[in-house]
């Protein structure tokens, strides 16, 4: 009797000690907002509710502002620029537009023009510029070729100080290919200015994460483009972005054909060799632009463009469902069902 009781006491003491050892999970704040045409989720770890709430509302304001400012056609900063560009003479632009324009120019150059914000008119022709999905029919070949021949490229634009002029009246700017990334970067910077060190800003599935969840890293699940399930998971190290461009995000079906929103600037048609591209990189703007560019590059040129854009962690799923993944990403990603996937690892040798 006596010994049994000692045993019970020890057992309970053991539980108590074990409970003390378990690492303290930090307070997690998670809220969602509907903005920028998608659901943006903000996760903050280890901060007081008051700060997290303020941060969330600040970001809501930021995103709403950015959404209005960068809409290519609806009243706002970019719409104004797009109105003035075809008219001819130089005009003044705000520092905000200048910054995003210059950022996009660098990325466009590095991507060999596969990421191209100068194709606003082409996007509009296809109907992907608006919030609602177009219903078809798709534009005619003649219409498309007419736009392409003029050479829709940022090279036709010259910026001097705050003055902008265009040599090609067919050019209007649409930053859709990296606007989400750019916005997420701004959001993270805002959080950092508020002193927040551990957070995730997830704009409709594309995210940037900083810090960690207590002493455990943030764990990101990557969803299969064709089914609902998760195909792989990734542990975030430090400050990283995970962006995916897919053919399932914005599209319409017309007469049995599917037309999605990632247009190949060279052909004027939706790029059709790829299902999705996932890029893991430091800043979100680059990750977003790279995901767009590599989607267009397709299985044939993705390695080349990835090297040029200096992104080393890439996963591309082609139209047949085959997975092409860079060695660097392959080393740290965990596929949930590896043996049932067709995976080819590529050594993107650069630097």
């Amino acid at each position: 009797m006596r010994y049994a009781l000692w045993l019970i006491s020890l057992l309970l003491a053991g539980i108590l000690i074990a409970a003390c050892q378990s690492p303290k999970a930090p307070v997690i704040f998670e809220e969602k907002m509907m903005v920028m045409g998608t659901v943006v989720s903000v996760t903050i770890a280890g901060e007081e509710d008051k700060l997290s709430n303020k941060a969330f509302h600040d970001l809501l304001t930021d995103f709403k502002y950015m959404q209005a400012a960068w809409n290519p056609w609806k009243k706002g900063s970019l719409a104004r620029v797009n109105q003035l560009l075809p008219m001819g003479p130089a005009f003044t632009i705000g520092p905000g537009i200048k910054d995003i324009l210059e950022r996009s120019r660098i990325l466009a150059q590095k991507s060999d023009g596969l990421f191209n914000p100068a194709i606003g008119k082409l996007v509009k022709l296809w109907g992907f510029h608006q919030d609602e999905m177009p219903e078809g029919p798709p534009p005619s070949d003649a219409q498309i070729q007419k736009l392409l021949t003029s050479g829709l490229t940022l090279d036709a634009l010259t910026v001097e100080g705050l003055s902008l002029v265009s040599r090609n009246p067919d050019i209007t700017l649409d930053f859709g290919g990296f606007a989400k990334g750019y916005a997420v970067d701004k959001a993270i910077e805002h959080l950092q200015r508020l002193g927040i060190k551990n957070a995730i800003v997830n704009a409709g599935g594309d995210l940037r994460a900083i810090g960690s969840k207590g002493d455990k890293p943030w764990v990101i699940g990557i969803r299969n483009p064709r089914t609902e399930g998760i195909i792989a998971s990734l542990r975030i190290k430090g400050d990283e972005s995970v962006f995916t461009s897919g053919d399932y995000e914005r599209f319409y079906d017309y007469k049995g054909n599917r037309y999605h929103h990632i247009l190949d600037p060279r052909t004027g048609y939706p790029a059709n060799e790829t299902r999705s591209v996932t890029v893991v990189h430091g800043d979100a703007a680059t990750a977003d632009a790279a995901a767009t560019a590599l989607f267009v590059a397709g299985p044939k040129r993705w390695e080349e463009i990835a090297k040029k854009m200096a992104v080393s962690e890439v996963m591309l799923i082609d139209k047949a469902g085959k997975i092409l993944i860079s060695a660097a990403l392959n080393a740290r990603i965990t596929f949930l069902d590896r043996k049932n996937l067709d995976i080819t690892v590529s050594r993107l040798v650069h630097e």
Partner: protein
Amino acid sequence: MSEIVKITPVREDIMIARFAALAIGIHVIESLLPSPIPGVKPGFANIVTLLVFLRYGLEAAAWVSILRVVVGSLIVGTFLSPTFALSFSGAVLSLFVLLACAGFNRRYPAHGLSLFGIAILMSMTHMATQFLVVYVFFIPHNALLDLLPVMMSAALIFGLVNGYISQNVSTRLDMSRNHVSHDTLMPSDDRNKIPGNQLK
């Protein structure tokens, strides 16, 4: 002309004061020890309460317990703080449990509880009361409930430890007033046997 009220301590007062001092001393030393989880202390001072109860009855034990909480908090510096509210309510409810146990023992002497069982009941009541007060008045948050199992385990363990110690001490010091079997707690309710008791 107002009369100066002179309080002359009688022997029982002195007895209670001494035991209370002992309990307070234990309490203060215990509060200096670090604890892995805030609010979880072995509560060894309760041993004094139990032994006083065994020998001098419930009222004396109540005095010792309350004095321990009040004076202890004065010394440690938490008087009238939320911590105090917790200690106090915990102590009060534990005393009610003590009363209930005494009643139980009186009614069913054959199935009486020893100090061991009573210590466990008092310890768990104390912890549960504190938890309830925190939950209702201070932090009505669901995350708090995750702590409950751990706290109650601690209360159980420390109840076992205190019970064991109390039981042993009472046996060795032959504290049972009525010299009955040390296994069963039979509090003395024959107060006239306490030397110098004039107040009842």
